[in-house]
């Protein structure tokens, strides 16, 4: 799959995943890799960036298997951003699909 597509949509996927359920780093990496086959190294930086921009909150949860885990939770600001990106994605994919269908019909 084209790398450009993947990168563009990664932010959206991260937002939607965390919106579905609070997650910790590893969990998110696994979740996103299921959806898009992408270099995992790029997922955490996006998570970090979205957190810095206040779209996510973090909190620690004690774990008896080791050090406390840092969980990420979406903020209301984050939900707004997610809706914005979803909107863009829908419009974008719709236009592209329409265009392709239109062109294919012509052949």
């Amino acid at each position: 799959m084209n790398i450009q597509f993947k990168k563009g949509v990664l932010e959206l996927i991260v937002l939607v995943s965390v919106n579905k359920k609070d997650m910790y780093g590893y969990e998110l990496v696994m979740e996103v890799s299921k959806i898009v086959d992408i270099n995992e190294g790029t997922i955490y930086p996006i998570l970090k960036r979205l957190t810095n921009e206040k779209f996510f909150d973090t909190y620690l949860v004690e774990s008896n298997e080791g050090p406390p885990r840092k969980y990420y939770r979406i903020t209301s600001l984050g939900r707004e951003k997610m809706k914005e990106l979803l909107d863009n994605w829908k419009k974008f994919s719709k236009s592209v699909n329409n265009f392709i269908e239109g062109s294919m019909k012509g052949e």
Partner: protein
Amino acid sequence: MNKKTFLKKLEEKLNILEESERQDIINEYKDIIEEKVKNGKTESEAINDFGDVNELVREILKAYKINPNFDEKNNKKEEVRFWNGLEAGIRTVAHKLAHFTNEIVEGIKNNNNNLTMEKVFEIIIKFFILMFVLILLKFPFYLLYNMGVVIFDFGHNPVSTILLLGWKMLLWFIYFIICLVLIYVFFQTQLKSIDDEKIVKNNSRKKDFEKKENQEEKQKKKIK
């Protein structure tokens, strides 16, 4: 690459970030690697999943709106490498001094003194002796300087003044380095002797404790 090396590399390259942020990131990657290992991967495999470290660092820095090119271009310049090295050196010295002072303070706090007042004064006196030695050390440098005056002074012209100045600076620089080295060695040895004393005291305490235990056992046997 193993986990330690990878995390160390990451830490170095993220040097520009604030300590708390950097630690935060390192911890997350550490957790992710460990979790992957728990789920069956080897450390190498887990790390390979992240791809190229440099690329990773670029992406991370973007999160802080830091121009990722900053590090690549500038670190190649000699100048910045020098300052980085200097900063690192200063940090180590500060760290060692803090450690040394901590040991002394803790020793004074404890009433079971590993470090007695006696020892503290010992160190202070030794320090003054060191200072005295360093002052004495200046003399040969003065002699060298005067030699330089004789050699370079061929009349009042700018060339000789410059040469003389250069000579003076060189000598000062060498003297300064020697002083730093001696002070560093001094602190190292003092620190070591404090640690050694601790170990010796702990060992002698252990022996005392073991003696006691043996005595108690013997008594128990007698009673039986």
